[in-house]
């Protein structure tokens, strides 16, 4: 049939020719107007006789508008991707159980942290049914000490991590968005960042004190830098996007632009930094404890420090706190990385 049509202009064909031009000024394109389903409703077409199949169908603008939707949801994809990372999910469950157990442990043990006494008859006992984790150089029960220290360390880490991230985010947002302050914060950053943090910690320990509270405050005071810079660089990416210009055109104020327009884009990065700040803080705490900058009776760092002199002969001093510390830090490290992978839209494949 194709050969038949060749060279023929429409005018040569015998049948009446339909003019297809639509007067666009009169076409009712109001998509809000509901049109009743006519005989052209797609499902009914399959039963049409052939002649009717080749008739013009009614045009419905809503159908045209409707076909393009995407059902993609960012956070749903993030969650789906995250749940696919089995090691991270398993470790997260383990951690949650472990955290709950720090409270249970003391309760099921005959010893209580507050009541521990120096006992020279029972120093360096190996784990037994009496002392489940053995005893310390002072003859104290290591089980309750270890779990108590775990709770202290997790609390400290959580506090410091949240403090660092909150401070870092707020400073980073302002640093990135307010052009006039860029220079000031950059210089401040360079000034602080050029020197290893351990030096500052040293000075603070020396000048102010070595209690956990002071050290936590110090860790926050010097720990916001990384987050702030990260946030600032991201703000740079979003700052001059057109939707922010649009907000400025509409007269939106600084803080609302920061928290409604920019902050939501940074959540994935912030959560990542938060999860990574926890193992970072715990590791840092052990280092500081080891260097003698924190004076606290029990924390995982202190336990590890105390074990250094004995663990070659009494490995239980090292093993229990080391295993717990490692579980916590590896969990958050894995969770953080899995989350950041899940947040990357390129991985939403």
């Amino acid at each position, binding site marked *: 049939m194709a050969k038949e049509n060749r060279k023929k202009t429409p005018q040569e064909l015998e049948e009446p020719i339909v003019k297809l031009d639509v007067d666009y000024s009169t076409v009712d394109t109001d998509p809000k107007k509901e049109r009743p389903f006519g005989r052209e409703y797609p499902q009914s077409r399959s039963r049409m006789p052939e002649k009717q199949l080749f008739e013009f169908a009614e045009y419905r603008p809503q159908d045209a508008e409707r076909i393009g939707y995407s059902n993609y949801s960012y956070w749903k994809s993030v969650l789906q991707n995250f749940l696919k990372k089995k090691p991270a999910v398993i470790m997260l469950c383990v951690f949650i159980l472990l955290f709950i157990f720090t409270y249970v442990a003391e309760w099921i043990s005959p010893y209580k942290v507050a009541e521990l006494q120096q006992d020279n008859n029972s120093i360096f006992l190996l784990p037994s049914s009496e002392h489940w984790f053995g005893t310390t150089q002072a003859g104290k029960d290591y089980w309750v000490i270890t779990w108590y220290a775990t709770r202290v360390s997790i609390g400290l880490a959580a506090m410091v991590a949240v403090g660092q991230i909150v401070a870092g985010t707020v400073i980073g947002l302002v640093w990135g968005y307010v052009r006039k302050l860029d220079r000031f914060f950059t210089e401040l950053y360079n000034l602080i960042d*050029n020197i290893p943090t351990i030096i500052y910690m040293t000075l603070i320990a020396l000048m102010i004190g070595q209690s956990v509270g002071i050290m936590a405050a110090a860790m926050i005071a010097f720990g916001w830098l990384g987050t702030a810079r990260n946030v600032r660089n991201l703000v740079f990416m979003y700052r001059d996007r057109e939707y922010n210009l649009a907000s400025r055109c509409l007269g939106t104020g600084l803080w609302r632009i920061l928290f409604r327009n920019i902050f939501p884009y940074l959540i994935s990065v912030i959560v990542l930094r938060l999860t990574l700040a926890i193992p970072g803080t715990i590791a840092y705490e052990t*280092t500081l404890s*080891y260097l003698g900058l924190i004076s606290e009776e029990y924390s995982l760092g202190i336990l590890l420090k105390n074990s250094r002199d004995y663990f*070659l002969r009494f490995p239980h001093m090292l093993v229990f706190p080391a295993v717990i510390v490692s579980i916590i830090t590896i969990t958050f*490290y894995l969770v953080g990385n899995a989350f950041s992978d899940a947040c990357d839209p390129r991985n939403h494949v």
Partner: protein
Amino acid sequence: MLKYTLKRLLQSLVTVLLIVSIVFLLMRLLPTDYYFREDELMKFTDEQKNERLEAEGLLDPPLVQLGNFFRNMVQYQIKKGRSYSLDQYIYAKLSGQGIDNPKNAKATWAFNLGISRRIQYGQPVQKVIGEKFAISMKIGLISLAVALVLGVVLGVLQARYKDGVFDHVGTAYTVFVNAVPHLVSYSLILIIGNQIFGLPAVYSSRDEFRSLILPVICLAMGSTAGYMLWMRRYMVDELNKDYIRLAKLKGLSSTKIMFRHVLRNAFVPLAQYLPYSILLTVGGSLLVESFFAIPGMGPMLSQAIPRYDLNLVQAIVMLYAGLGVIGVFLGDLLMCLFDPRISLVGKGEAR
């Protein structure tokens, strides 16, 4: 280029001086008791203390003390004679008074950062640090060389065989090293090295080689993981870029693309942090050295702090600040050498 270099150098110097000043002034807030040895504190009366402080200028207003500190930082020292600060020396020369050196004794220019009062009583600080610095540098440089070679090579291999077995093993290693606190992993290495291979658990100068193996492993372990991680990440980033697609379209095989295009481009961002990390490693790892009782910079700081040896702490801070600032500066310079897009002259893009 030269102009930029000088400008940056000057900036760095200002930064260091600023930090030193702040630290110096902060130190002056501490009680004056810390200027005495522990035994002196016991036996001195308040008057004796005051006399000493007066004599050493420690009761002057802090800003005056700071000025003196900078004035006396560089000295012309005559053996068994007096010392001249820089301005005194110049004045003596210019005014025709001449240098007071009757016996023609040996005279040298030297840094003067004060004396250690508690760790090594009476010793100039720079001398105390100097001895320790040598050993820290040795360990630092060895471990850094090991880490750099291993880290870059392994990182490249990981990127090359991305998602393969080797990549996963490498990633597991970096996760382990980064996630587990160093104190724990050092303990692990110590146990394995000591119990299985019989290596010494603490440093001894008699058996230096063998006793340095574990510390070097510990130091290298962390930075290897760092270099691996970043090298792999930068390589993968580069591999996703448009120009790699064009190189592939040219008909280049993926091996050639790796070596001719990706490797160098991925190394550039790494290069920027190289000098900084070298200088810091050289400065000594506090933890490793304390852990293995190596008489380097590390333990010195942790000894000086609880004993409040102020001059020593101050000098160490200055050293670290200097190293850090120089490291950042060198990193920027290195970056310019590698990346033609960065022009230090600030001419902007040519069209």
